[in-house]
């Protein structure tokens, strides 16, 4: 049964997935939140999307295509720098702790939260909230507030609750992941803007290739990797859990499926979905060839 499945994978024409499917997948992935170390909701979605995939002991979603030597690996990082609940006050406000890259990716990384809608991924489902900001009117005629950028230490999340108990009843607790509410935004000619849009579009291209059942020479380990923005060595973990891997670097194909972006690590990180098409074609070619 397994052998028959592999044969079918091998004879199916490759790279036939229409571009709009890549666009749809990229938008879908960009709408998801995967705070580094708290990626389970997104990895659950990938497990559902990709038949035959499994979650490894590190939390990565992996899939093995083809058989025999050599064994190669291609992966995309799917996590993002984000926030978790660090404290809940008696009067129902929520404080945050950042999780991920230190130092900050850019000076206004945290400031992008100020005065914006956020989503708290509580135990009873997503809960909307906002990050407070001083009212413009009430600052007039008073000494100017600090000119330094807003930081996570200034972030106070308001979910509309009036007490700690009301917050807890919503399913929000310590370590609940929190992120800007994701609403991917397409502008220009297939430009996708969203937090971590580049990573998500690259993962979408990789997933689209897997779904297109490409021709595979040898064995390819496909991995959607978690905790890359924390402290983990992605390749070492994959090798330890899935090794041995024969070929980890090739001149014609990057090991990491990635895309160049504009406005990196901002709310409007922008990726050109035409580049995702190119990545997809390169991946299909790479899956079927060994140099």
């Amino acid at each position, binding site marked *: 049964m397994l052998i028959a499945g592999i044969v079918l994978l091998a004879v199916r024409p490759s790279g036939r997935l229409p571009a709009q499917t890549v666009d749809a997948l990229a938008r879908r992935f960009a709408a998801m939140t995967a705070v580094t170390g708290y990626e389970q909701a997104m990895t659950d979605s990938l497990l559902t999307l990709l038949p035959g995939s499994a979650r490894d002991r590190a939390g990565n979603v992996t899939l093995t295509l083809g058989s025999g030597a050599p064994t190669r690996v291609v992966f995309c990082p799917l996590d993002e720098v984000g926030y978790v609940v660090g404290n809940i006050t008696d009067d129902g406000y929520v404080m945050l702790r950042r999780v991920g890259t230190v130092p900050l990716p850019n*000076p206004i990384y945290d400031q992008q939260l100020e005065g914006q809608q956020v989503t708290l991924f509580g135990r009873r489902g997503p809960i909307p909230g*906002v990050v*407070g900001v*001083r009212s413009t009117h009430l600052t007039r005629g008073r000494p100017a507030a600090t000119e330094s950028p807003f930081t996570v230490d200034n972030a106070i999340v308001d979910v509309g609750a009036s007490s700690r108990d*009301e917050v807890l009843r919503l399913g929000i607790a310590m370590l609940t992941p929190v992120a800007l509410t994701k609403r991917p935004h397409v*502008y220009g000619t297939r430009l996708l803007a969203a937090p971590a849009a580049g990573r998500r579009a690259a993962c979408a291209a990789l997933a689209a290739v897997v779904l297109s059942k490409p021709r595979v020479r040898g064995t390819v380990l496909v991995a959607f990797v978690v905790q890359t923005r924390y402290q983990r060595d992605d390749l070492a973990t994959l090798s330890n859990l899935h090794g041995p891997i024969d070929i980890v670097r090739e001149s014609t194909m990057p090991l990491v499926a990635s895309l160049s972006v504009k406005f990196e690590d901002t*709310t409007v990180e922008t990726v050109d979905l035409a580049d995702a098409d190119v990545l997809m074609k390169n991946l299909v070619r790479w899956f079927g060839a060994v140099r």
Partner: protein
Amino acid sequence: MIIALAALLAIQDTNRIAEAQAVLSPLVESYGVSGAEGPVREAIKRLLPAWVRTETDTAGNLWVRAGQGDPVVVIVAHMDEIGYRVDSIRSDGSLILRTRGGFFPSLFEAKPALVHTDRGSLPGVFLPRDSLSLRRAPPGLRASVGATTRAGAESLGVKAGNTVTMPKHFVRLAGTRATGRSFDDRVGCAALILALRRLDRSKLDHQVIFLFSVREEIGLEGAAVAARALGTTPRRVYAIDTFVSADAPLELPNYAVAPIGAGAVARALDNSSITPPAYVDSLAALARARGIALQVGTTSGGNDGSVFTPFGVVDVPIGWPLRYSHSPAELIDLKDLVSLADLVRAVAEDW
């Protein structure tokens, strides 16, 4: 019996909240930067009761008249919102922006944008700063619609004078609270619509003008046009506008502390008008008589009613408490909108 009565009242409350949201939500999700209030005006017309006849003046203000005779009373809420307009298009296709109204530009930096062209709303982005500036405020904000040349942007319908906003979403929060952008002053507009829907016209023994004004955020310009047109005819004006509340964790508690969810607020003193104390007392008495929650407070900002006062018209501004004003995270309690609508109706019918 008492339990059944309580259950009935709870259902009525829920229905009132649902109606308030059904009116407010489409208003909040309409776009109308000062001077470009057309979509909001059309949304209001769709939400008004069937008996209403509207007029639009040359400034763009929308007028609704009910009842006849003196004293004429004006109840005004403004349709416009803060935002940007395109000042010019650079050779690289990016748009140089100018603010319309007062707000923190940092709240728009590196966010999705909509450029409102003659052909419709065009998606784009507010560009992040291109330096590693360590200041909170961005050094002049620009937007991009993805074009790389001036001609490319123009071919998409972009031109100087187009207004630019951020996409908006009305979102319910815990309990009866909600968030969105431009609650200031769509809540006021919603209160007038809800009051008109429930207005008992047989009770009106004088004319009440419900005015939906333009260009409040850039200097009360629309209301000034209406005030000049009416001259000394009105006796009183009620500006139904935001009570910017210090009931928020980042604010100083010196004044403006009107808790959200505790009802409408008599905006007795702000930066543009002082309500005569006897009128505040009278308004409070009216609210008590009708069983309407009313707070009394002082806050910052100006109101449309203030431009009527040079004509000897008494300005009685009434608001509802708002957290995080002029931000994408404005936050209200829908109970306050219900209370405000009831008070507007009471003012029209009984005062």
